[in-house]
């Protein structure tokens, strides 16, 4: 058998069905008699909802908040002082707070007819001033939530040794950077089919989610139903990215229909709905002041962060997660001694902020890494040198940083050295001195980050969230044919866990992974888990799978030795067999005995048999920190304002790699999304809070020709705290690209005195920056259209 365990590049088991178009997504589920749901969404960003007139004759197939009797609104508590709770009715009641908010739903045999009905509903809206800009929303007397005294979800203040260390600095560098709002754009949007199962006396909800068990809890609360009477099934899910880690108002509405009418209903989000009502991530603004020495050593950092939180806080993670992560992660992989940060999370008339792949770290990495380059320019050193000056060293590990995060292990400078070598900085620096035949300008950019993964109870409990992760369990069952069933409560939606969890089981028991079936995505079939988010699943579920498999070994040894009639202390477990002094028995033979021939078993056999459910939690719950450095070379066309990526190198370390091919795939996918954030993706609004990018005509994503071939290098620094030393890495790829590409562009345009710091870098933004810089450089009369 070829190596299949931890570290093997085995092809993904799930790909056969995906590549043949045989995946089963919620939209592929068609139940007899199923009705389709279309939502009427708010056309206004901020308005008093005075009335809703149902179309005459169609009253019975149109539903508003008034019809949803007994439904609890979405409210998410959080114990951080000053945090304000928002109340979100699944269908708006009294007021609408963002364009795209659900107001009513129409039900019909087909979606087209449901849309026909929905568009006949007449709304009486009294428009209020829309709060579109987070800074302006802080200043105004208009309230998004009337009962609040301002428009702030939360203010966080953090200070650890700032004044003391700032006073030692000789160099001060100030910058302002910002990221645009964007959508997450999974291939599959939200999708829900709900039905009533009379036999089980259960509400069955198929939903495209990362967290089926959490959705069960949320639906039970919202609908006022016992959890036991709800089963949530997440079949194949076409991408989550954080968009599907929270309770969705659409889930409540469709579940309510099925609960009320005891028959199946379906809703599938379309792309326009996604781009309007899903514009919910990344929008941060930073004012930064670095206090450094003349070598570029960052002694103290002062920051003011503004998160545009949108209208509502989500359940269960709350909108507080984002400002919290921003405040806590801004110092990045650096050894900074003084840090002061004030973070505002502001309510605006936009969809409520959700944690997108990277969760705040894409923005904080953008902020600190642009600042690093600015410091380098100021002190006249190479950006990589200044980074190296500041990175936490391998000798310092484990390291408690200035925000009291516990960096478990790693060699951060080495990853930077690797990308510098592999990108061949000297070669490009030499080429920069010559001018390109096509007139473009070349630039090289770097960024480093570290990424907390699989952080658990203490971290989330500090936030006082309504739902806090603890242990994860796995159930393993050796079947009579010798194959293995593995059940986990996390969900795999692109991460390849049907393969990697099988590899972990194989590592322990030696079962051929072709004969290991990983079962997930069904509250009726899997142990409880808070689900897949925060790069936690391979650490948590992986650890639990290992523990459960290990629990079977003594039982196999006991039966095996009895079958061979030898003493139990003379046998040992080898992959797939129990081996005695003279003979051996296969796991299959043992399983046959257990299930079919119990007369062959020892009298004192462990009656728990060949099935085990064991929980797992790493030795510390402060997280295992993955890290990486990225480097890129770009060519900038200063006439068109376009950026081409000529080369892109990544050196990452996520501890022990379960499957390097999967690590590569996750890294590439994340980095492609990061390129989207850097150069293309943006959900702009007009002054009335109307979304301006509601189709792919206006909302651009990187395509195959915009994503370069990433050259990825790995090192493996094991986490001292997790099973096998594994660290989570699902989010990492998406963190660094905006920082790297902006640094590269700024490097390319150094001679023009251009510095860009606002995503996405559209041709218009880039050209505007070039024109601003040239206006400052020379009087208008001596300039031509070409630089």
């Amino acid at each position, binding site marked *: 058998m070829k190596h299949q365990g931890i570290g093997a590049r085995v092809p993904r088991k799930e790909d056969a069905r995906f590549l043949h178009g045989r995946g089963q997504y919620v939209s592929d589920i068609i139940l007899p008699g199923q009705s389709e749901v279309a939502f009427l969404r708010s056309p206004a960003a901020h308005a008093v909802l005075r009335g809703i007139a149902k179309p005459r004759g169609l009253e019975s197939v149109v539903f508003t908040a008034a019809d949803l009797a007994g439904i609890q609104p979405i409210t998410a508590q959080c114990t951080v002082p000053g945090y304000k709770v928002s109340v979100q009715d699944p269908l708006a009641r009294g007021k609408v707070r963002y364009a795209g908010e659900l107001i009513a739903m129409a039900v019909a045999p087909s979606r087209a007819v449901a849309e026909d009905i929905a568009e006949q509903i007449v709304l009486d809206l009294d428009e209020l001033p829309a709060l579109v800009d987070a800074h302006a929303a802080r200043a105004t007397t208009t309230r998004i939530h009337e009962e609040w005294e301002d428009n702030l979800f939360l203010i966080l203040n953090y200070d650890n040794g700032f004044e003391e260390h700032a006073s030692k600095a000789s160099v001060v560098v100030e910058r302002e950077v910002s990221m645009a709002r964007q959508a997450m754009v999974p291939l599959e949007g939200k999708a829900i089919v709900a039905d009533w199962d009379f036999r089980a006396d259960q509400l069955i909800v198929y939903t495209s989610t990362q967290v089926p068990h959490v959705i069960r809890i949320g639906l039970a609360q919202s609908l006022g139903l016992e959890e036991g009477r709800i089963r949530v099934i997440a079949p194949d899910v076409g991408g989550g990215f954080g968009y599907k880690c929270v309770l969705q108002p659409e889930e409540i509405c469709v579940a309510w229909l099925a609960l009320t009418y005891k028959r199946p209903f379906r809703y599938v989000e379309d792309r326009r709905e996604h781009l309007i009502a899903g514009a919910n991530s990344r929008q941060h603004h930073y004012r930064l002041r670095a206090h450094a020495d003349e070598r570029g050593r960052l002694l103290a950092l002062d920051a003011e962060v503004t998160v545009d939180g949108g209208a509502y806080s989500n359940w269960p993670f709350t909108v507080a997660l984002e400002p919290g992560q921003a405040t806590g992660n801004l110092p990045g992989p650096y050894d900074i001694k003084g840090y002061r940060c004030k973070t505002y999370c502001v309510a605006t008339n936009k969809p409520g902020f959700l944690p997108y792949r990277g969760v705040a770290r894409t923005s904080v990495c953008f902020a600190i890494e642009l600042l690093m380059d600015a410091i380098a320019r100021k002190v006249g050193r190479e950006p990589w040198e200044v980074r190296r000056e500041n990175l936490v060293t391998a000798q310092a590990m484990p390291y408690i940083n200035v925000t009291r995060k516990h960096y478990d292990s790693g060699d951060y400078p080495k990853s930077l050295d690797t990308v510098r070598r592999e990108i061949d900085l000297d070669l490009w620096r030499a080429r920069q001195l010559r001018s390109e035949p096509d007139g473009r300008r070349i630039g090289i950019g770097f960024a480093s980050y570290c990424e907390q993964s699989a952080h658990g109870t203490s971290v989330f409990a500090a936030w006082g969230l309504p739902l806090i992760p603890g242990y994860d369990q796995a159930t393993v069952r050796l079947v009579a044919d010798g194959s293995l069933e593995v059940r986990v409560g996390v969900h795999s939606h692109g991460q390849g866990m049907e393969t990697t969890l099988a590899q972990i089981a194989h590592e322990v028991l030696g079962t051929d992974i072709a004969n290991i079936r990983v079962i997930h995505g069904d509250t009726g079939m899997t142990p409880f888990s808070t689900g897949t988010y925060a790069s936690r699943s391979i650490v948590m579920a992986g650890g639990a799978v290992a523990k459960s498999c290990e629990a079977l070994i003594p039982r196999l040894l006991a039966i095996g030795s009895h079958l061979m009639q030898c003493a139990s202390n003379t046998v040992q477990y080898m992959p797939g067999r129990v081996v005695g002094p003279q003979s051996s028995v296969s796991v299959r033979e043992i399983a046959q005995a257990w299930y079919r021939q119990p007369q062959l078993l020892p009298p004192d056999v462990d009656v728990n048999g060949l099935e085990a459910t064991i929980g797992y939690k790493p030795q510390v719950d402060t997280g295992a920190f993955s890290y990486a450095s990225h480097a890129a070379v770009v060519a900038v066309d200063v*006439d068109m304002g376009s950026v081409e990526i000529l080369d892109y190198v990544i050196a990452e370390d996520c501890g022990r790699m379960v499957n390097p091919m999967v690590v590569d795939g996750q890294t590439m996918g994340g980095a492609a999304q990061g390129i989207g954030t850097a150069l293309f993706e943006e959900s702009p609004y007009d002054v009335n809070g109307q979304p301006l990018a509601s189709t792919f005509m206006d909302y651009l994503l990187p395509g195959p020709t915009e994503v370069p071939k990433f050259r990825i290098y790995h090192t493996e620094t094991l986490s001292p705290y997790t099973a096998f030393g594994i660290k989570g890495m699902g989010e990492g790829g998406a963190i660094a690209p905006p920082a790297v590409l902006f640094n590269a562009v700024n490097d390319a345009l150094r001679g023009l005195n251009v510095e860009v710091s606002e995503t996405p870098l559209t041709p218009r933004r880039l050209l505007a920056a070039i024109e601003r810089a040239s206006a400052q450089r020379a009087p208008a009369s001596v300039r031509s259209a070409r630089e």
Partner: protein
Amino acid sequence: MKASAFDYVRPPDLAGVLDMLRQFSGAKLIAGGQSLLPLLNLRLARPTLLIDIGRTEALRAIEDRGTHVRIGAAVTHAELEDCLIPDCPMLRTVAGGIAYRAIRNRGTVGGSLAHADPAADWPLAMAALGATVVVEGKAGHRRLPADGFMLGAFQTRLEEDELVVAVDVPKLSPDARYGYYKFCRKTGEFPEASAAAVFDPFSRTARLYLGALSGPPQPLHDLAATIARQGLAAIADVAIADAVDRVAAGDSIERRMRCAAVTRALKEVFAE
């Protein structure tokens, strides 16, 4: 995002198409559907009847007519990408640069001209090529120059009951040169700026057009004439900027991109 209800017909021939168009005022033609379908799904267009001309034989031919080549209105971008018409090599270049192959497989030349998106490729390319749009309707047969066929964004000289049946593209001599440049934010997007140039010393043709404006493509006739006389030397930044300013209002960024597009199209003309 589902279209509102409509009826659908596919008449057997062109006469049938014209009949239906005359009879039903709420009708709309559908060729490749690559512009119309999104409008239907967004419910921005709500025709009561779709008349499918995508497979109408009379609109599907590419014919050599001696001095020119006649391209049927329902010929797809992909068909033009895949066949080399020796005397009209620019058709292949332009066709291959439209959107993605999946869209080119369905989108048609006639649909593109009739839809009249200012950023589209065929209105610009056909103007630069000096093509003629052949139109059929109640009033009979009309021949309209491609330059001027588009009146404004999504507006043409077509009457309600008329359709485009073909485009006549003049053949170029072996000495002719052309340049076609468009700047798109990413592959397959509509351009931010575009320009097309056709120079044929044999027929004393010198055409230069600027596209992706708020209205129809605009000719830069004087600049083209100067360049035809003086060659590469006339491609000066100032001259280009002046010519662009004369036909298109815009902010400094639009101007910068447009000038660059014109410059690059011209450089292609003179490239070895």
